[in-house]
Each structure stands twice: as structure tokens, then as C-alpha cells.
């Protein structure tokens, strides 16, 4: 092969190399933006899940108040809340949708004493407490993930005291 031919061959390979390099760079940015877009979609879906759950959790028979077989809207029965934690239903709720969630009912009125604010209500201690955790993801599952909390006011029914109170339902979502 003469010298001119070698140079022309090298030119051609250079052009091809640059074309593939440009394609490679283009694809890298394309996939990077795709992954980012997907992560944003997951976050949005997750927030949407949480918003929907704020309305749907309160109508689950394992939580909703009922009096003489009549269901009360937007009302949680605190006697049921004491026992639902760790049930199959609670697990299904926490794992529903695109991301892990923590679901908590909090007392607002009558206001719990400051020292009891974060105390968990249990069958042995149903009064000197401030919250009922329905589901909490394992720490390993949410390690390094960003959390965001949404809430809605609910009515809390204390059947053992024949009283109603005010509370709120908090749903914390965990996303990468």
C-alpha cells in the first residue's frame, strides 16, 4: 500500500472513530437523563401514592370507626389502632406502591403531655402516649433515603372513654 493510501485509510478511521465517540457521548447523556427522569417519576409516583393513601387508609375496616355496624367517615378507632401494628394488613399498607412508607396516627386534641408526645400507645399503656405507629420500614430498607411527610386531620374515637378527639394521619415516604 502506498503512503497516500495509508493516510486516506487513517483519515477514514479517524472520521469513524469521531462519529462513534460522538454517538457514545450522546448515548451517555441520553441514558443519564433517562435514569434521572425515571428517578423523578418514582418520586412523583411515590408522592401520589402517599396522597391517595391519606384518603384510603382511613376507610380500612381494621382502622375505621364503626358504631352499631355503621361506619363513621374520617374516623380512626384507637382501640383497633392498638392491635393493628405488625398485622399482615399493616405490612401490606406500608409496602403498597412505589416506595416504602411509615404510617402513624398522632394525637392532637386532647393534647398529650409534652413528655408523652412521641410515646407509642400500647394495650398496656393506652393513655399516657401520643401516637400509634401502624407500619414502620426496617432501618436497613430506608438507609440513606430521603424522607418526606404528608398529613391529614382525622377524628380519633376512644371507645373505652366514649369520647372523640382530634388527630392526624402522617405518611412518610422514603425515596432514593
Amino acid at each position, binding site marked *: 500500500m502506498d503512503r497516500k493510501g495509508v493516510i486516506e485509510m487513517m483519515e477514514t478511521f479517524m472520521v469513524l472513530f469521531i462519529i462513534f465517540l460522538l454517538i457514545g457521548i450522546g448515548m451517555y447523556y441520553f441514558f443519564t437523563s433517562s435514569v434521572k427522569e425515571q428517578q423523578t417519576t418514582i418520586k412523583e409516583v411515590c408522592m401520589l401514592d402517599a396522597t391517595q393513601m391519606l384518603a384510603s387508609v382511613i376507610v380500612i375496616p*381494621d382502622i375505621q370507626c364503626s358504631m352499631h355496624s355503621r361506619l363513621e367517615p374520617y374516623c380512626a378507632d384507637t382501640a383497633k389502632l392498638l*392491635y393493628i401494628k405488625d398485622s399482615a394488613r399493616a405490612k401490606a399498607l406500608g409496602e403498597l406502591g412505589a416506595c416504602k412508607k411509615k404510617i402513624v396516627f398522632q394525637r392532637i386534641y386532647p393534647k398529650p403531655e409534652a413528655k408523652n408526645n412521641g410515646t407509642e400507645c400500647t394495650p398496656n399503656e393506652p393513655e399516657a402516649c401520643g401516637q400509634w405507629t401502624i407500619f414502620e420500614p426496617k432501618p436497613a430498607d430506608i438507609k440513606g433515603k430521603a424522607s418526606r411527610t404528608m398529613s391529614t386531620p382525622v377524628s380519633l374515637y376512644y371507645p*373505652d372513654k366514649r369520647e372523640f378527639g382530634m388527630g392526624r394521619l402522617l405518611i412518610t415516604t422514603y425515596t432514593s
Partner: protein
Amino acid sequence: MESVFKYIFAMIAGAFILLFFVNFAMKYISSEENVEAAELVSNFDNQLSIVSTSENGFKEHNLGLERDISFNRGRIVSGTAKKNSTNIVYSPKSLQGVKILLWTKKWVFPYAIDSFYYMSNDKYKYVAISDETSQEFVDTLVKPKEGEISDSFKAVSFTFDKFQSQQSALSRSYSAFKKVRIAYFSDNPSKDTIKKLSSSMKNADVIVIKRADTNDGEWSAGTVSFGQEEAIYVGLPMMIGAIFAEDFENYDFNLKRALGRFREVTGLYMKKAEFMQQRLPSCEGYTGSVGIGGLLKSIMDLGEGDAAKYAELSTALEESNKQNFGADCPSVF
């Protein structure tokens, strides 16, 4: 000559690059379709939970484009995407189309247990057939605007005699449906009637619904037969589920899942009854063999065999909850 080789080389290289981009675009389109299918499948439970906020909610779910979704024993499949749903869904095995009719009904027996979901589309027809033992009930079940079954499914009812007299016309007008589910309601289902219904049209699929022998004489519990196989139903929403279920295997799968949920909620009420007794010792009737706790334990221990027993215990529980508790001693449910 040299330049000819150059052009050939450029054409081959260009063709490879073009092929690469075409292949990439095809793969991208296919992966986008898979992502959409995955989104549809993974968001499915959320769509159900939106509808479940209503006790008797209906939604026409638009899928955007023609899709084939399969529901089989709690598993949803669309394209390459698969997911197990924890919800109790009564539906044909395969729904093809752009729209899904989605309806929910709360299962209360005698306390709220869960929401049942019914799905179908315009390719399926539902026909209820009554005889003299069931006519009154079937008229309330399938009644425009006031019936128990949502009007959106366009279910129709006939007495067997009327159905027979219109059979050829009905067979012609229902021939375009993928399946015509015929639910035959009777206390004494006759084999001859079942045979005639099965052969009435080529796409007919007959189930037989029989009421349990209970004191109140209601249709709230009984048995449902899919050919040779039979299972119980407990409550009207479950009976309606049998009408929408693809086959015995799917109905039985949902029955087991529903009874599992029933035991879970009953267990919760048993714990609540014990808690109430501890907190309100002056109130009677929360626990003990004669209290509501005893009835809850009895109904929880029932298996899948006796629909009449479920109905009796459900009535007893409802009465106990109403009569034993009032302002000072709140009801359990």
C-alpha cells in the same frame, strides 16, 4: 477506481450506523412500552385503593391504548410486567381493550371486612336467570338504577321461561360477546335447566347459585357451582364476585383470601372486645362464652364448609352488638 471503493466503504459504514440507530429506536420503543406496562401493573393496587374510598364506587379506567391485562389467582400480568396483588379481584382472566370497568363493594358480614373489586369490559355479558324460588331476589339484584349490581356492567335478568322464549334472538344479539356468564339462581336447580342454559348459546358459561338453608330465608349465604365444582359464598358481595369470576379456581382462590381477611378482622375485634372488658369492667357481654367475644371466636373457627352457619352466627353477632351495648358500653363494631 479508488473513489468507487471509498463510496462503497462509506455506504457500508453508513448502513451500519443507520441500522444501529433504527435498532436503538426500536429497542427504546419496546422498553417504553414495557415501562408503561410495568407502571400500569405496579399502580394497579393504587387504582383500586382510590375506588375503595367509596363503599360502592365505580370507575371507568382508561388505559390510553389497547392493552391485554391478565388476572389470574391474584397475579396481574401485562406484557412482560407481572405483579401479585393483595386485593380481592373478581374478573375475567384476560381483559383486552382500552377501557376497564372497575367497581368496588364493601364486604360487610356483619362488620366491614374488606373491599371486593369487580372488573370487566364491554366484551363480557352478564345474565341472571331466576325461577319461582329466586325471582323476587334476582329482581332486586339486577334492577336498573336500584339493583345491587352496578348498571355500568349492563347486566340483565330473565325468568327461565322468558329466556327460553327469547333464546334465539338473545343468542344472535349476544354472539359478539367473548363470553356470556349466565348465573342461574335457584333453591332447587334442575339439571335439565342447566343443560338448556349451557347449550343456549355457543359462548355461554353457566354458574348455579343456591341459597343456604337459614332461618331468615335470605340469599346472603349459600353455594355457587361452576360445573361439577362447588364452593360457599358468604354475603352478597361475594355472590356477585362469583358472577364476575373467570372460573372455580379463581373464585376459590378469592374465597380463601377473603376468609383469611375475615379471620384477621375478627381477631382484631376479639382483641378489641377483651380490651373493652378490661377498661370497662362494669359492662357485661364483651367476653366470655355468652358474650360477643364467644360469638366472634365461634365464627372465626368456621372453615369453608358451612355457609348456613356463617349466616346464623353473623345474625347472632349483629343482634348481640345491637342489644348488649349502648351509650355506657360502646358496641364492638
